[in-house]
């Protein structure tokens, strides 16, 4: 907190390319916290439990990252669709579709890596919380893709959230895995 204060009062501020002149040379007035809210790019509460390193290191990476985790995708959403949508905030470097660990089929999440942080920030501001394949998708900062992180961590092979949910979601395999154990016949009739 103190560190941030020093930056603010010294008049030297980190800014984006486009609006950089706007605040660079100001010694007379201050950057107003109340006005410069940019909360859509803040890191969330989520921390990857499998991350190799401590919390501080993970947070440092999240704050510099160019990679986003994208969740609540339909199992049928393709890399092409993700590319089209996320290209609206900048040039996409790479997309990695999340896979069921056992079946190796798409299981409803992916990673989108941009060439620059600024483009990723635009995605957090303007693509997070909008629709892809008619579903509201959610984006969050990711510390960076590592081999193995493209697999679901649920017991059944998909994402953890699909293990325990009680609702019926045809785009994500129907009922949650736990709930499916109680309704075997209905799963077959789901389409």
């Amino acid at each position, binding site marked *: 907190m103190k560190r941030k*204060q020093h930056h603010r009062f010294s008049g030297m501020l980190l800014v984006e390319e486009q609006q950089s*002149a*706007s605040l*660079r*040379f*100001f*010694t*007379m*007035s*201050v*950057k*107003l*916290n*109340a*006005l410069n*809210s*940019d*909360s*859509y*790019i*803040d890191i*969330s*509460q989520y*921390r990857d439990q499998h991350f190799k390193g401590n*919390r501080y290191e993970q947070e440092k990476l999240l704050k510099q990252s160019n990679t986003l985790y994208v969740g609540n995708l339909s199992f049928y959403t*393709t*890399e*092409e*669709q993700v*590319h*089209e*949508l996320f290209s*609206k*905030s900048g*040039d996409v470097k790479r*997309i*990695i*579709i999340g896979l069921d660990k056992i079946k190796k089929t798409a299981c409803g999440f992916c990673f989108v890596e941009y060439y620059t942080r600024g483009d990723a920030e*635009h995605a957090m*501001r*303007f*693509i*997070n*919380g*909008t*629709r*892809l*394949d*008619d579903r509201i998708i959610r984006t969050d900062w990711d510390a960076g893709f590592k081999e193995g992180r493209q697999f679901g961590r649920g017991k059944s092979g998909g994402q953890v959230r699909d293990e325990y949910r009680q609702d019926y979601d045809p785009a994500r395999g129907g009922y949650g895995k736990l709930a499916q154990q109680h309704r075997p016949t209905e799963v077959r009739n789901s389409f």
Partner: protein
Amino acid sequence: MSRRRHSDENDGGQAHKRRRTSEPIEIEDRLESLICRVGEKSTSSLESNLEGLAGVLEADLPNYKSKILRILCAVARLLPEKLTVYTTLVGLLNARNYNFGGEFVEAMIRQLKETLKNNLYSEAVYLVRFLSDLVNCHVIAAPSMVAMFENFVSVTQEEDVPQVRSDWFVYVVLSCLPWVGKELYEKKDVEMDRLLSQIEGYLKRRVKTHVPMLQVWTADKPHPQEEYLDCLWAQIQKLKKDRWQERHILRPYIAFDSVLCEALQHNLPPFTPPGHMPDAQYPMPRVIFRVFDYTDAPEGPVMPGSHSVERFVIEENLHCIIKTHWKERKTCAAQLLSYPGKNKIPLNYHIVEVIFGELFQLPSPPHIDVMYTTLLIELCKLQPGSLPQVLAQATEMLYMRLDTMNTTCIDRLINWFSHHLSNFQFRWSWDDWSDCLTVDLEKPKPKFVKEVLEKCMRLSYHQRIVDIVPPTFSALIPADPIFTYKYPDESASSLPGYPMSITVSNAIKNRASNEEILTVLKEVPNPNQEDDDDEGESFNPLKIDVFLQTLLNLAAKSFSHSFSALGKFHEILKTLANSDEGKLHLLKVLYEVWRNHPQMIAVLVDKLIRTQVVDCAAVANWLFSQDMAHEFTRLFIWEILHSTIRKMNKHVQKIQKELEEAKDKLEKQQHKRRDSGDDEDMDKNSEDEEGQLEEQIERLQEKVESAQSEQKNLFLVIFQRFIMLLTEHLVRCETGSVDISTPWYKNGIERLQQIFLMHHATIQQYMGTLENLLFTAELDHHILAVYQQFCALQL
């Protein structure tokens, strides 16, 4: 470490952290918060909030004066939509503490000088407007404000300065008059009349060559798109005729008149506008975007006329709100919808018009395109009963005027509309647009629908598009994006490349190395040569065709598969494409196999450039080649071209940055050595390091020059090709006595314009070469006009 934090639930991002202590820094933050929040929704009236805040600040002046000065200066600069709230606050403070008022005015003048020095012209406008409204609050004496305006207008007498410079000073004066015109006329009508007459003279002699390049429509009906200064002048003229009666602006200071008129006023110090500097970047001229008028809002309040000053003030304020809050769409939407005085105006119409105005602004929107899409979605969420209808009405009107809409703006409309629809299950009354089915498919309306459906497909899938449009629209449905393989089975066995395609396919499936495959490919006969080429290194189109077709066929499943294939066989591709003809043919084959999937073509071309298999000029030459002529009006072609230019530009910038960093490092090293004293060992190490840095700098210098040369060449290639194609068309029409204005020509000439507009900053560097080599007087005047309009922008 506890996972729980004290901050509020983050539901899409606008949490506020609670504080626990009250150090001085906390008090300053609180002051900031109090000042920034005054004027927002509150249980008390604005007047009582202002009164209360003035009291608090007056009490804090002894301890926090400089902080309060800084905050007030900042809100003047950064919250122009709340101008009158803050001028009233300053007025109240001045009435209570004359010295503070004086110090504030001085601080504002210093800030104004700094903004002008740093090319922050829009913020400078807000500062001057703030000062002028302080006249209404009895903080600044009217005659001294008039004197400042006189100094500004005298800039129009300067010689040999860019027109955009004098434009700006005139704009500042005119744009203050809605707020302070009445007061200034009451005190100094003779001087004001003289001022306005000087401005009128200037406006009459201004050059307006740049205007056509900035207009969204080429037609004047139903609404002429006026140049921004002409529009503002007309608005001020009307205001003057109405004897400066202005009723829209919220003026809290009126309620405090009895207090404020007792205050002593300050005189503005004489302010000489800073002289013109060569590196000054004045704001670009604009055209005022209008799509609605008083006939369009069916019920409720009437829309103020295009030349009413209310229209100016409303639009200004809405633009300011977007500028302040664009990063936070929920806040932005909420702020737009809670515009003060909204019950007297058709606010939804103004909001939609202002947003589209920014989205279609030429050369480019103030903010990234996708922001506007998301903002409109947010607005629809907050006003589900009224805003979507206005948006649909606007979309309908834009569709109806497509025939005369600028191609660049149509591109943006296509991207906005398809993205918007994808958030609303693609629901649209397509039948309302069935008129587009009765005309030539190259005309703007059917073309627009076709491109929209293609983009919708990219965000979903082919069958979805088939399902959402009426069967009558089948001609406009995009092709199913499938791979077209030349060598699929025995039916292709008569083709010369067929046997080799099987061999190569098997080799790849059996994980043969690059060398092994190259050896295999040596056997491919070269249709261009009669003798055997021992090395097999020269350009062999059949070799390229067989390899690339086979490879891409095996990798056709997804983007990732194809990228992986290009990466794995990078060596082979580089070898095959080691000549200009090779590169061109590679791109040709790529197009042939993926011609139904333009999105795939674009991403593969991108990869081929980034991995240096093809260069930017090769891509440009390919796009303009005869083989691609039938696709010349399709959007994906231009997306590829602009993406290619951007990559080139980023590449140059990257190396320039590396050079700057190396130079900085050297300078630091030299300083260190100078300051370090007489340590011999240190000296020698330093010298070595410096030597290395100097070498590095030399290498980077060469790299920069080489990159810039490549960049210049790219633009030359592009412009040359445009000139050739367009001239051919113009000559053909002239000799055949046919009208030049075909849909193809409109697209072509506006795409040329688009190159200038989208990359103006880079092109500026090469103006000399362009003028000497390409845009000479011998050129057809239609083409030369585009170049002249670009020069007239004086960017």
